[in-house]
């Protein structure tokens, strides 16, 4: 049982499709229910035996994060992997429902709460994983331990690249602190840089390949 945020396009979609191909149940957590449904249908087209579900999740609203976690836990008592993949990159300035700059709010804060709310299920399902999709762009981010400013006001936003970098730095540090706190529980947390990827921002995505059912370098599901 895997939950993937932002699973309707790009890396999240491809990861979800591959997990479905390997016979896992996958929950596609997406902001837009129509797009989430379309992604689920697309995976079922490519993998007829796929166990794919959708979950409404708007990471820019902590109330939505709480509702999504409650809905997931109401339907499932197992979670082998939480994949915090969803995010926004250098959008025009905006804030979450709670007033936090959108990139930090969605990429880090919403995922932080989601992860905390699902930790008991992850722990009960151990060995399990929390995988946080960060980016090399974290190198553009600066955070000060003596004065951690998660919110960026409009006057400091510019094009948003520094705020994006800060959100990705927060992602990496989240995985690091989570791993420290989860030592001995069997829940493993890591972050990653997926590479520079041409995502949905660049037009139509290729369909899920139906021939390469087991890409040579995708590990088998063993837990």
């Amino acid at each position, binding site marked *: 049982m*895997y939950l993937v945020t932002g699973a309707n*396009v*790009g*890396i*999240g979609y*491809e990861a979800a499709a591959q*997990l479905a191909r390997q016979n896992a149940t996958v929950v596609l957590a997406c902001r837009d229910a129509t797009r989430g449904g379309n992604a689920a249908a697309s995976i079922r087209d490519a993998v007829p035996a796929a166990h794919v579900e959708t979950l409404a999740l708007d990471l820019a609203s*902590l109330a939505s994060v709480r509702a999504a976690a409650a809905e997931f836990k109401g339907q499932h008592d197992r979670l082998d*992997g939480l*994949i915090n*993949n969803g995010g926004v990159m250098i959008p*025009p300035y905006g804030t979450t*429902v*709670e007033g*936090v700059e959108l990139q930090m709010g969605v990429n*880090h*804060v919403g995922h*932080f*709460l989601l992860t905390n709310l699902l930790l008991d299920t992850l722990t009960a399902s151990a060995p399990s*994983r929390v*995988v946080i*999709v960060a980016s090399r762009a*974290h*190198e553009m981010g*600066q*955070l000060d*331990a003596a004065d*951690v400013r*998660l919110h960026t006001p409009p006057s400091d936003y510019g094009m948003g690249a520094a705020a994006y970098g800060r959100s990705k*730095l927060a992602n*990496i*540090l*989240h*995985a*690091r*602190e*989570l791993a*420290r706190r989860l030592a001995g529980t*069997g829940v*493993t947390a*890591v972050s*990653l*840089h*997926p*590479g*520079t*990827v*041409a*995502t*949905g*921002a*660049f*037009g139509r*995505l*290729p369909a899920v*390949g139906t021939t390469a059912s087991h*890409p040579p370098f*995708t*590990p088998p*599901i063993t837990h």
Partner: protein
Amino acid sequence: MRSPQWLGAVIKAAGPLVGVKTPWEGAQTTLQAVLGDEVPANAGAYYSDCRPATSLNPQATDDGLAAAVWAATERLIAASPSA
């Protein structure tokens, strides 16, 4: 905000030459992190190209900063109206 179609075509053509990955290629590090047997031995690591990265921004390996960001995030959530 979508980019124009021609830009997508340029990136599709030039991408492999400059290291741009397709979404499927981009998903491989995520899949390794989710499924790889070696991952528990690398808890807390930052993966790149399907293995733990060795060169990192020093801030990204600062345990004091990691703890401070965790605490600040908890405070922010606790102070939020919907919390």
